[in-house]
């Protein structure tokens, strides 16, 4: 029989469960909370992918980029290592600790590096430091076969695998990490088995995205964003959405709320009812950023250093709910996934289609 095409060689649509938790005060809490939330939505995933992103988990290395990398074999590892050594100062490197559990198998080599760009190389490239890191990440993922940079931001990291998310959490010993925000994802890929790299969250630099849905605008978005140096290696919705957010928010300096109104733009009928100034603004956004419009069902949680943003597609074709308790904000596909970790809530809110729910840290994280 022919080998089944791996993710990245073929586009695999998938349904999912998502969950996100943040302490606005920046208090760090264990990854176990995220595991408990996503575990409740077991039936929304099918064991073919799960993952977590934690922010504030590496305070002792917070000034360095933390690279989590999958290697399929030692050839890939050697090639990637020499690439990293050529471009970065390696401050620390180690295997990411895991525990053997029966439900998680076929794991790649999973490594973690703390590093900073080589000053001479950086100067030579004439790029900003962040752009340099982004280009290196995309370069490795596109060109070094068998190596995949899972996350590349500061004081954050992504942990993902093929399996049910609660098992993935156990596998990575996430109860031992603590962070001020966590997102979690359980995957339900259709067609063919998912792949470790294709699990969520998808991350680039400090952004990570968990996503539930199947967008119908995928190829319009992909072909457009690839004009600007991105390469959609995995062919997943999450990947293209992350790249668009990186481009608009980081590179074009557009605030996240406006980014949300570009990705899930209001309908023309809504725009027509706005006052003259707003009408012109939204017309400007819809016209100039037309190819960033995302259609089809999605709910996403975007994590970044300062907070979380939940966003639904413009018709709200996927469930998404937000609960608040004191300084804690919870976002999930289902209310029960919030109640299971925070039974008593101050408020509960179902964001409307295309309405971003943004939570930012109240204080700078120490």
């Amino acid at each position, binding site marked *: 029989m022919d080998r089944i095409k791996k993710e990245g060689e073929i586009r695999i649509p998938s349904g999912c469960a998502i969950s996100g938790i943040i302490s606005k005060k920046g208090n760090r809490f264990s990854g176990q909370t995220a595991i408990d939330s996503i575990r409740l939505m077991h039936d929304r995933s099918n064991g073919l992918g799960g993952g977590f992103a934690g922010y504030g988990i590496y305070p002792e290395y917070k000034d360095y980029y933390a690279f989590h990398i999958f290697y399929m074999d030692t050839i890939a590892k050697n090639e990637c290592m020499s690439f990293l050594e050529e471009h970065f100062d390696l401050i620390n490197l180690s295997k990411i600790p895991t525990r053997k559990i029966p439900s998680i198998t076929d794991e790649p080599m999973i490594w973690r590096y703390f590093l900073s760009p080589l000053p001479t190389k950086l100067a030579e490239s004439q790029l900003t430091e962040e752009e340099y890191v982004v280009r290196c990440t995309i370069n490795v993922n596109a060109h070094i076969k068998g190596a995949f940079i899972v996350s590349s931001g500061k004081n954050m990291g992504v942990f993902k695998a093929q399996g049910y998310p609660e098992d993935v959490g156990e596998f990575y010993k996430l109860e031992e990490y603590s962070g001020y925000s966590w997102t979690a994802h359980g995957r339900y890929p259709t067609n063919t088995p998912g792949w470790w790299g294709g699990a969520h969250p998808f991350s680039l630099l400090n952004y990570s995205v968990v996503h539930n849905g199947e967008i119908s605008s995928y190829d319009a978005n992909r072909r457009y964003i690839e004009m600007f140096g991105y390469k959609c290696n995995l062919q997943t919705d999450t990947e293209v959405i992350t790249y668009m957010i990186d481009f608009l928010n980081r590179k074009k*300096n557009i605030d996240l709320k406006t980014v949300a109104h570009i990705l899930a733009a209001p309908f023309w009928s809504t725009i027509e009812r706005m006052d003259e*100034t707003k009408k012109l603004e939204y017309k400007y956004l819809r016209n100039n950023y037309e190819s960033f419009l995302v*259609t089809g*069902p999605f709910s996403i949680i975007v994590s970044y250093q300062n907070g979380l943003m939940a966003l639904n597609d413009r018709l709200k074709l996927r469930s998404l709910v937000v609960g608040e308790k004191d300084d804690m904000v919870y976002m999930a596909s289902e209310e029960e996934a919030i109640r299971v970790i925070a039974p008593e809530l101050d408020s509960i809110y179902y964001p409307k289609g295309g309405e971003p729910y943004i939570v930012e840290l109240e204080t700078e994280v120490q």
Partner: protein
Amino acid sequence: MKVNLIQSEYEVIRDQSRCINCRLCEKQCSNGVNYYDKKLKVMLSEEWKCVNCHRCVAVCPTHALKIVKSDHCFKTNANWSKHDITNIFRQAQTGGVLLSSMGTPKEYPVYWDKMLINASQVTNPSIDPLREPMETRTFLGKKKLDIEYDENHNIITDTKPQMELSLPVMFSAMSYGSISYNAHKALATAAQELGTFYNTGEGGLHEDFYVYGENTIVQVASGRFGVHPTYLDAGKAIEIKMGQGAKPGIGGHLPGRKITKEVSKTRMIPQGSDAISPAPHHDIYSIEDLRQLVYMLKETTNYKKPIIVKIAAVHNVGAIASGIARCGADIIAIDGFRGGTGAAPLRIRDNVGIPVELALAAVDKRLREEGIRNEVSLVVGGTIRSSADVVKAIALGADAVYIATSALIALGCHLCRSCHLGKCNWGIATQIKELEDRLDPEEGAKNLVNLISAWKREIKEMMGGMGINSIEALKGNRLMLRGIGLSEKELEILGIEHAGE
């Protein structure tokens, strides 16, 4: 003895039991096919004059007429077709260049018909356009990727000049002169009602139609007919015509008999003189010259109008388009070789250029590879025959499409390919008053509005099926297309996968 080498291609079949000798078919045929035989007291036909335009069939009150293909034939020959042989007879007799009109009738692949559209099943929902918003509004022009704010933190909403369309379909260039006043009026009023645009073609703009300026594209072609500052200011956009799909590489020739008083005034040339458009623009021998014309037009109109550069789809069209995008054009229009014309040398129409589907795929890909797709909008024409063609064109990478032949058919054209004779029985491609009067501009406009409204509904249904509720998410969304019966190379050029993949 006169030997007649060329036999008529069609036969006019008249059911004598139905014919009431009303002679309407005789009066309505500008080619003089039908006549009344006083001695026999019956209507007869000189069918070698027939162009098969169906006018007589359509007006016959007793449905006594039909036109059939003649079964008169040459000895069977797989190499020498009837057309090859008769065309040699024609040229041997006249020494002339063969002329014809409208798009090529030859059997070249129509790639629209070799692509299939996707629909949602299970993993994401299709959307019902009767119940949910389904948006087709389209903007043409350069896109900005940066946002600047004013002191109140409001977005500064100035953009480069844009065209706003209620759906991504416009009427393509057809000059007043090549088509009638009434045809132009029908196109102009329909464009206004539909919230889209029609195009003056290279014949200038009749003074009566300046009121439709907001829905008009004014064209500047190599003959510069009818071009003056007021004309340039009158339209919403200006199109520089570098080429036409039906006749790439050559100019145009409107015979003197079509240059009536009104046409003469509009074109600013003497009445009865031939209007000859040179093959090239004689001030554009290279891309840097085009840049000068683009900026000259922008200067003249205070940078208020988007400039469209229209080219014929030819080999190497990707590189040509890239050059145009870099010379300041806001929109590139690509005209495929199956596109129509009011008159073209037959050999050129049938053999020069490439299909618009391949040209579009190549240009869209090239502009993206160069990272300048946002700098320019793409409009394609030649030929778009239905709403399905529109959807496929947008998914392949077009921002909008141009239609002309489809619009003329809506006005009554039966594709008899005889426009160059100037005797259009349907009142479209003619300047003969009594023929022109057959086309009621109001009824024509209504038919055009009906056609485009029907297409709009169909486009929305197809978009909804794909789970797409706004047209921009379809733009360049090639995953929504699959090829059927195409070679690896064709798929590669179109940038799509084969059905089943």
